[in-house]
């Protein structure tokens, strides 16, 4: 008889996110996984399925995820999988795997040492190989085009962008894992120079090293391992056209479609906390509007990606933070968002809830 296929997050772990660490990527994963399995109260050997998100281009080694398996405790041999994407998509795969109902627990990771090389030189390699990559189309440039589209359409202001950055850095002071934190004056932020007009330094994410791990379990096991599991009530992702020149950059249709597919009722105003993977300040404003989130929803109490951006883990951190809000902070319903590709090309939405 298969287990009930209700699935919940029961534990999480993450490293402090820093500009540069001497830790190897498997070393970072050992820390994050060690925390996660300890919180769950299980050994690495008891985990039924593992799935990791990481990127060879970031680490500069082919099959680098094979090294990372050393942090998983893969003996006796395990069911294991890997996605060359943010750990949020590894989370999606683990959720799908648990839906089969024949296993009870899964461990998901996301990891990256962005300090190993220059992300602005690596990212163009994932762009359209004919028309964008040869020009060195870097993420800050493409994000700046989206910001200008939003500004020109009158949907956001540079002041609102600076307010997002100031709020992120302020709340990050309460997050021991965050990297960029402190009290910043919006007027002073607005007086600084552009890095990519209309983006200023505060509108851009930091470069971060770090890893995150999450333990998932099916219904009975979840209740056994966690007093207040964060139940996955829905998760979905949607991809749009790659080249930003061919998209309406003033909306994120894919985010909204993913949220609807994950079961979000846009009119219900039911989300207590949303952790959005907005690596650029304007993306938070766009995502908030695309999801129809009201003032009632607290956005990125962790500080979000503007406070720490460990590439390949940033999205999974959003899921871990949204789960913490239920497991530890007594919230009822939270939303996590992750993204991949230029200008929010592909978006994942995960809705978590507490259950009696």
């Amino acid at each position, binding site marked *: 008889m298969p287990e009930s296929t209700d699935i919940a997050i029961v534990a999480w772990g993450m490293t402090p996110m820093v500009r*540069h*660490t*001497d*830790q*190897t990527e498997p*070393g970072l994963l*050992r820390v994050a996984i*060690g925390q996660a399995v300890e919180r769950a109260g299980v050994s*690495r050997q008891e985990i039924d399925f593992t799935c990791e998100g990481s990127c060879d*281009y970031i*680490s*500069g080694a082919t099959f680098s995820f094979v090294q990372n*398996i*050393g*942090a998983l*405790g*893969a*003996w006796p041999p395990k069911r294991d999988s890997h996605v060359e994407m943010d750990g949020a998509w590894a989370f999606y795969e683990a959720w799908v795997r648990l839906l089969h109902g024949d296993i009870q627990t899964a461990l998901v990771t996301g990891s990256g040492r962005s*300090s*190993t*090389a*220059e992300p*602005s*030189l*690596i990212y*163009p*390699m994932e762009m359209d*190989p*004919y*028309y*964008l*990559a*040869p*020009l*060195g*189309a*870097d993420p800050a*440039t493409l994000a*700046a*085009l989206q910001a*200008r*589209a939003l500004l*020109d359409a009158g949907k956001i202001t540079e002041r609102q962008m600076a307010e997002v950055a100031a709020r992120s850095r302020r709340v990050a002071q309460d997050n021991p894992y965050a990297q960029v934190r402190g009290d910043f004056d919006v007027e002073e932020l607005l007086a600084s120079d*552009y*890095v*990519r*007009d*209309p*983006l200023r330094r505060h509108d851009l994410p930091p470069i971060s090293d770090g890893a995150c791990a999450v333990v998932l379990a099916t219904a009975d096991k979840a209740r056994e391992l966690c007093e207040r599991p964060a139940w996955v009530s829905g998760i979905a992702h949607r991809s749009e*056209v*790659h*080249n*930003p*020149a*061919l998209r309406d*950059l003033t909306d994120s249709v894919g985010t909204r479609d993913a949220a609807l597919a994950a079961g979000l009722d846009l009119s219900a105003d039911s989300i207590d906390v949303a952790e959005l993977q907005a690596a650029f300040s304007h993306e938070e404003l766009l995502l908030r509007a695309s999801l129809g989130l009201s003032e009632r929803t607290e956005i990125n109490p962790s500080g979000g990606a503007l406070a720490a951006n460990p590439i390949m883990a940033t999205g999974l951190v959003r899921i871990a933070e949204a789960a913490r809000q239920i497991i530890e902070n007594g919230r009822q319903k939270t939303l996590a968002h992750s993204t991949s590709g230029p200008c929010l090309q592909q978006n994942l939405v995960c809705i978590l809830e507490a259950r009696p």
Partner: protein
Amino acid sequence: MARTVETVIQFPYKRSLGPVFGEFMTALTHRRILGVPWGDKVLCPPLEWDPYTAEELTGDLVEVGPAGTVTNWTWVGVPTAQHPLDHPFAFAHIRLDGADTPMFHAVDCGSPESIEVGARVAPRWRAARVGSITDIECFVIGEEPVTPEADGGGAAEPVTLMDYHVAITYNNPVPANAERSVEAAGRQVLLGQRCPECGRVYSGIVGSCVIDDADMGPDHEVELPQRGTVTNFTIVTPTQYPGQTETEPFSRCMILLEASDVVLSFQLVLDTPPTDIRVGMKVAAVWPSPAERASAGGAGGGLVGWMPTGEPDNSDPDLVNRIM
């Protein structure tokens, strides 16, 4: 902060262009810009398929531009090595006259005050054009394309391939265990680590047991035997690609160290034709001379390779399975 090792990885991609990209790139060498009919619109730069429905776009390519209108822009104050210009410039979305979608490209216009949405721009052509989006060096403000005086002219044959070469520099910290391993190699010692919990012995630098996650440091180090047996091997016949330095077939062997469970991967057996390498062959470690060590800079763990000892082979039929 730990010492770091710098590695430059080159990605020398060669791409087939196919009918639509090929015709577009060929036209660029002739200083013409083409778009593809897309319903009642024109898509430029052209694609083989509708980006929304994936239907094949079958219409004949049509000439657009060369001038166009800026629909969006940003300013790059500090260009990267991959950018098309080495001084400050704008990246922009440019809708060429006759096209309905914008093209992403650079605009060389001196300062951000010189560009705005609605600005008119035209291409500045590269003198030596090969069939690449970078045949357009950039756009400039105004209606008139700029062609260099010593123009190289268009391609005589249709362009069917494009090169994309990127080099990324990586700096990896050297873990403390690895430093000690390199130091030991300088003393002609092969270092391993024994897990304090499960007793498994690992070669070199792992730092933690992959089975039970126990930390391993200087207290857990052991000297590994320097004689062993080939358990398995492969012969690599090198294909030539950019950066390939090998020209002749060579071996990569798995070597089980004597009186241990440690198998070293991908080792080189010296002074032996690849066809003579066999499972069960007994070998001994060969260290570099002091002069060789100085020139190698301590890289690669220190060993030159393994020399056959001439002892009788190990005939254990299960030996071939020992690859880890």
